[in-house]
């Protein structure tokens, strides 16, 4: 808890206007399991926040709460300073919050441009305007610097990194202002990782998109994120700017926690 105390509390009742997302005292239980306990998260406009922690620490649950897929048992969410109760993924999306899952984002059998426009198709009734969609998708991907052979190919023929880039581009294209990226770099080659990191750097430069990244690799997180939050057993145990911490420190905290838990278990056994 001490690390969190270092962050100055927001002054007064009105949060800073450039705070796009704020979670206060979020708790979530699944039966006997406490997934999240009194979690506080802030996200500034244009900021990239890394959310790290071991499996089962509650990262995914927190993401699901942010994207409207699950509701917290207690606590509140503020989007652009206004309190909201996210009713659904669609509702969250209408507020500009969009989540990109690595594996389930795209339909492999459909072309790149159909994926870009999935559920937002341009239709000249009763038929799809494939030509316009193709053109706009290409323009948008070029603008974002996403490099793929053609927007006409099925997504199945692209690499994991290209697919991830398209999923991110689609969310931005759909006017997402808060992007939640779930393990965007997992199971990727070095070239692919560089490609996604470049894409996130570009988005950061735009300044109007805020990003929360879930990741395992601390090095990559520190490279790309402005700030990191460490989740352990449903609690945020560290909240620091990337430049104020190191892979070593993060590792030490997680390993120390693991040792302590192990000792406790052995003592009680």
């Amino acid at each position, binding site marked *: 808890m001490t690390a969190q105390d270092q962050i100055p509390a927001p002054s007064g009742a009105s949060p800073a206007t450039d705070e796009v997302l704020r979670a206060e005292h979020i708790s979530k239980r699944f039966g006997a399991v406490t997934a999240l306990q009194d979690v506080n998260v802030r996200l500034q406009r244009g900021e990239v926040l890394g959310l790290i922690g071991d499996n089962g620490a509650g990262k995914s649950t927190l993401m699901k709460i942010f994207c409207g897929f699950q509701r917290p048992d207690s606590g509140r969410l503020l989007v652009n300073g206004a309190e909201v109760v996210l009713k659904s993924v*669609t509702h969250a999306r209408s507020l500009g919050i969009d989540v990109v899952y690595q594996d*389930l984002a795209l*339909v*492999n059998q459909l072309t790149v441009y159909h994926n870009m426009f999935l*559920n937002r198709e341009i239709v000249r009734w009763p038929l*799809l305007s494939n030509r316009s969609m193709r053109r706009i998708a290409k323009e948008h991907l070029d603008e974002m610097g996403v490099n793929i*052979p053609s927007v006409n*190919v099925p997504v199945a023929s692209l690499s994991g990194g290209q697919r991830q880039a398209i999923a991110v581009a689609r969310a931005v294209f759909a006017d997402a202002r808060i992007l939640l990226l779930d393990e965007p770099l997992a199971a990727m080659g070095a070239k692919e990782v560089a490609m996604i990191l470049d894409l996130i750097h570009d988005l950061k430069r735009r300044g109007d998109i805020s990003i929360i990244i879930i990741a395992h690799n601390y090095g990559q997180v520190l490279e790309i994120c402005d700030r990191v939050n460490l989740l352990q057993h449903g609690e945020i145990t560290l909240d620091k700017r990337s430049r104020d911490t190191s892979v070593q420190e993060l590792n030490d905290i997680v390993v120390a926690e693991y040792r302590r838990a192990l000792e406790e278990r052995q003592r009680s056994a």
Partner: protein
Amino acid sequence: MSDAVDSADKVLGRPASGGAGRGGNGAGRTLVGGLGAFGRQREATVLVVTVALLAYFGISYHSSFLSQVNAVDLLAELMAPIAIIAIGEVMLLICGEIDISVGFIYTFAPFVMYFAITDYHVPVPLAALLGLLTGVAAGWVNGFITVTLGVPSFIATIGTGFVLLGLALVVSRAEPLPVPSSWDSTGKWFAIPGNPWQWAPLVWTVVLVLIFHLVLTRTRWGLYTISAGGNLLGAREAGINVGRIKYGNFMLTGFLGALVGIQAAFYTSTVDPSAGGYTPMFYAVIAAVIGGTAMLGGSGTIIGAFLGAIVLATLTDGFDIAGISANPLSIIFGGAILIAMIANVQLTRLRQTGRTL
């Protein structure tokens, strides 16, 4: 510029990387690209098979195979029911479902029409519409059990199929009932013997194939059907109402099953509880798969299923004309289906590894 090079590489199946394709022969590449584009069409294999079969029987048995009587047999009687039901099965298979009951919708729907006319004095056109709506309702029930109650459609529709067969047997007391010729003023729009109305099923088929080819490839409904079967969670994530798509495709299939049943009732002047059943359903599924529809969902084509229906009808009709006796026919027919399927699977595998055709 580099974009053009990259897409050419893609056609040739090479990994897309900047300058790898530089210095190639432009015209040669276009030719290979063109052949590749044909080979990559899922319908290509089945089109070749269809043309080959038609040519074989057309040349070997031209006097009987190319007669008008045989054309009606082949296209309107044999092919049309398979193709029409296959349209529904293609849509269902693509979105990850199947309808085993459709052959019994075929059986039952004409009885609703029949008794609406004889017992409730409903005008014939309206009764025919009631029969079609029976199919839609049966499709809704299939959707309800599958989508809402969560029973896999393979089992759910076996169950509803038995129920429909039982209903048909109960209401008919297991006896065929005669359709009077006075109903022909409505019946001719479905199918009755003699020119020109005996061609009606073929016209229905072609129109429905064209419509649903467009629906599948050029409308939201088609995209969502592919999405539901290709990536169910992803489709839901994108906010697509996947349940609605599945319900709709079950109802479509029910409608098509009822349509084929009513056509058969008018054409044979009989409402027969032994009509329909598993055979037309299995033929339709086989036609769909021969035509390139994936059993596991996510991809398929209506045109391919249409060609698949022609293949099955040509085999049945052609072997009949060739005078192969009924007993070994099943062996040959089964063998032909297996060869078509194996060719399809292997060619698809070749396509996916990049060596087109």
